[in-house]
C-alpha cells in the first residue's frame, strides 16, 4: 500500500528520556492479537500510559497536555527486542511522523521506514541538547528536513545531518513502497532461481 509522503516537519515534540525502550513497551504482546493494522495507536506504550483500571497515569508523558507534536524524542537504543511491526503501526497510528534518538535497533528502523515513520539518528550530544531545550521549554520545536537530511533544534539553532540511504529516502519522499518495486522484478527473480544452488 502506498505510504504517506514525508515532507519537512517543524513541530513541538514528545520527550521520552528513557534508554533501551523495547518493542514490548511500545506495544505489549497482548495487543498483538489483531488481524488488521488498525487501532494500534490507542495502545501505544499501554503499560506506561494506563494504570490497571485503565486510567491514564498522570506522570506519563503522553498523558501530559504540556507535550504534543508529531515527533517522539527518545533515549538511546530505541526499538530493541521483537520484530513486531505492530510497534511501528502503534507509533504511526498515534500520529508520530518521526522518532529521534541517538541509536535505533535494526529491525525497528526497517519497520518504521516501511510505514512512513522516519527514524532520525542524532549524536548523543545533540540528543542531550534537545532534551535540555525541552526541559527549559516544553514548547521547544524541532525541524526535520528529509530532502536535505538535516534536523534542527529550533530553540538553539543547532543543526545536524542524519543518514538515510537514497533508495529509502526516495521511497519516503514519494510515498513508494518496496513491494511494488519487487513485483516489477519478476523476471529477474525467475532468472536468479534458475542458476541458484538447490538440493
Amino acid at each position, binding site marked *: 500500500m502506498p505510504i504517506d509522503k514525508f515532507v519537512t516537519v517543524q513541530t513541538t515534540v514528545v520527550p521520552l528520556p528513557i534508554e*533501551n525502550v523495547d518493542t514490548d513497551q511500545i506495544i505489549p504482546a497482548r495487543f498483538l492479537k489483531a488481524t488488521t493494522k488498525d487501532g494500534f495507536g490507542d495502545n501505544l506504550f499501554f503499560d506506561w500510559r494506563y494504570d490497571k483500571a485503565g486510567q491514564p497515569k498522570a506522570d506519563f508523558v503522553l498523558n501530559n497536555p504540556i507535550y504534543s507534536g508529531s515527533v517522539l524524542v527518545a533515549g538511546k537504543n530505541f526499538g530493541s527486542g521483537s520484530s513486531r511491526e505492530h510497534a511501528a503501526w502503534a507509533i504511526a497510528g498515534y500520529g508520530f511522523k518521526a522518532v529521534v534518538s541517538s541509536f535505533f535497533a535494526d529491525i525497528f528502523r526497517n519497520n518504521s521506514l516501511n510505514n512512513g515513520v522516519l527514524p532520525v539518528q542524532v549524536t548523543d550530544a545533540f540528543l542531550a541538547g534537545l532534551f535540555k531545550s525541552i526541559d527549559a521549554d516544553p514548547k521547544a520545536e524541532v525541524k526535520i528536513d528529509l530532502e536535505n537530511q538535516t534536523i534542527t533544534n529550533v530553540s538553539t539553532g543547532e543543526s545536524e545531518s542524519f543518514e538515510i540511504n537514497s533508495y529509502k529516502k526516495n521511497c519516503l519522499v514519494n510515498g513508494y513502497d518496496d513491494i511494488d518495486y519487487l513485483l516489477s522484478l519478476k523476471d529477474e527473480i525467475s532468472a536468479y532461481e534458475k542458476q*541458484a544452488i538447490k538440493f
Partner: protein
Amino acid sequence: MAKTLFDKIWDSHVVKTIEDGPNVLYIDRHFIHEVTSPQAFGGIKARGIQVARPNQVIATPDHNIPTVDQHLTIHDELSRVQVETLKKNCEENGITMYGLNHPYNGIVHVVGPEMGITQPGMTIVCGDSHTSTHGAFGSIAFGIGTSEVEMALATQCIMQPKPKKMRINIEGTLANGVTSKDIILYIISKISTGGGTGYFVEFAGSAIRSLSMEARMTICNMSIEMGARGGMIAPDETTFEYVKGREYAPQGEQWEKAVAYWKTLVTDEDAVFDKELHYEAADIEPMITYGTNPGMGEKIVGNIPTLDSIDASSKVTFQKSMDYMGFAPGDKLEGKQIDYVFLGSCTNGRIEDLRAFAAAVKGRKKADNVTAWIVPGSKQVEKQAIAEGIKEVLEEAGFELRQPGCSACLAMNDDKIPEGKYAVSTSNRNFEGRQGPGSRTLLASPLTAAAAAVTGTIADPRTIFNL
C-alpha cells in the same frame, strides 16, 4: 578475494543490488506464524496477487495457543481468530501448515531445525526476531517485520541493506554447570543490548565448535538480544549429523552433493571482519539477569552493580529498572526468593534442555513456594520427553509437563506470570511485562532454573547439584 561465511551466503543470494540502497535478497525458506502474518496476507490479497512460492513457506501457530487442553477449541476469541486466519490463508495459498495437534506443531524455531527444513547455506526469514536461531546451521537467518513478510510472500525476496560483520571467538573449555545459555548471557552482559546493532555475528572458536546443535541454537537465538541482525556458526560434522535423515533433508546422491557444498561454507582464513571480539570459556560462570533487558546480567554468585558503577546518562534508566524489579543496586543475587520457574521457549525448550532439567531435579522435590511451567518447544519434543521417561521424572519431583507453544515467553496466551512475582525463566527476554503485566523475569539456563525450582531461590546449580 577472501570471504567470510556470511559473505559467501549473502552474495550468492543477491538478485539485484540497488546503488546506495538495499540488496534484493532471495529467500530460500520463509516461516510464518499466526501473529505477524495476517496483515501481510491481507496486503497481498488487496493487491490481487497470490503467494509466489508457496512450497518455500512453512506455517505453524505457536505464539498465541494454549499449553493445556489443546484438543479443545481455543477459548480466547481473538487468539482463535488469529489461528483460524492462519489456517485459512495457508489453505488459500497452498502453504503447508503444522497446525495445533499436528504431530509436527511447535514453536517455529524449534520446528524448522527438527524437521530438517533449516539447512546450511540457506537464507531464512520469519516475522519473528528469534529467527536468528536457524543461523546455528550456518545459514543467514533473521527476523523481519510484517511489510517484509508481505514482500517475501509476494516475491520470495526482501530488500535488505547488507549488514556489517562481526566475529565473536570463544576459546577453551566450559566448566561444569556452565551452558551455552551462560555463554550468550555473558556476552550480552559485556557488550550490552545495542552492542551488536548493525552487525551480523559469526560465533567461532573451540568452545563453540564443541557445542551440540541444540546448544548452538541457544546462542544464535539470543544474538538478537545484543542487537545483532542475526548470528551464525559455520556448519561442521555436528551440523551434518544433526540434519541427516530428517524429513526435509536431501537424500542419497543429493545428500552427498549438499555436504560437499556445505563444507565450503567457512570463513576464509584471511577474511576481514568489521569487528572482532575474543572471550575465554574459562571466565564464564552460570549467569542470571537482574534487570529489564538481557544485557543486565551477572554471574549468579555476584552482586547487582552499584549505582556509581553506572554511566551518569544511564542512571535514571537503571534505577527505573531496579524499581520495577524490586531490587536495590549492589544486592547479592544468590538467596533471593523466587515464585515461578519457566522452562521452555525457542531458546531452551528443546529435548536437551528438558533432559538437563530432569536430570538435575531427579530424586528431589520442587520447592513449595514455586509454581513451575515446563513447556516443550514442539510436539516432537513432547513425544520424546514422554518416550525417554522425562515426564515421569518430572512428575515424581512435583513438576508437570505442559503442551508445546511459546507459553510464558511472551504471555500472549493464558500463561502469564502475575504482577510482582519473580520468575526464573529459560526464555530470552526480561523486558518489563514481557511475561505478563508487572511480571519480573530473571533469565537463566535450564540448570539454573532447576536449581531455583528445587530451592525456591536464586541458587548456583554447581553447588545445589554438586557439579
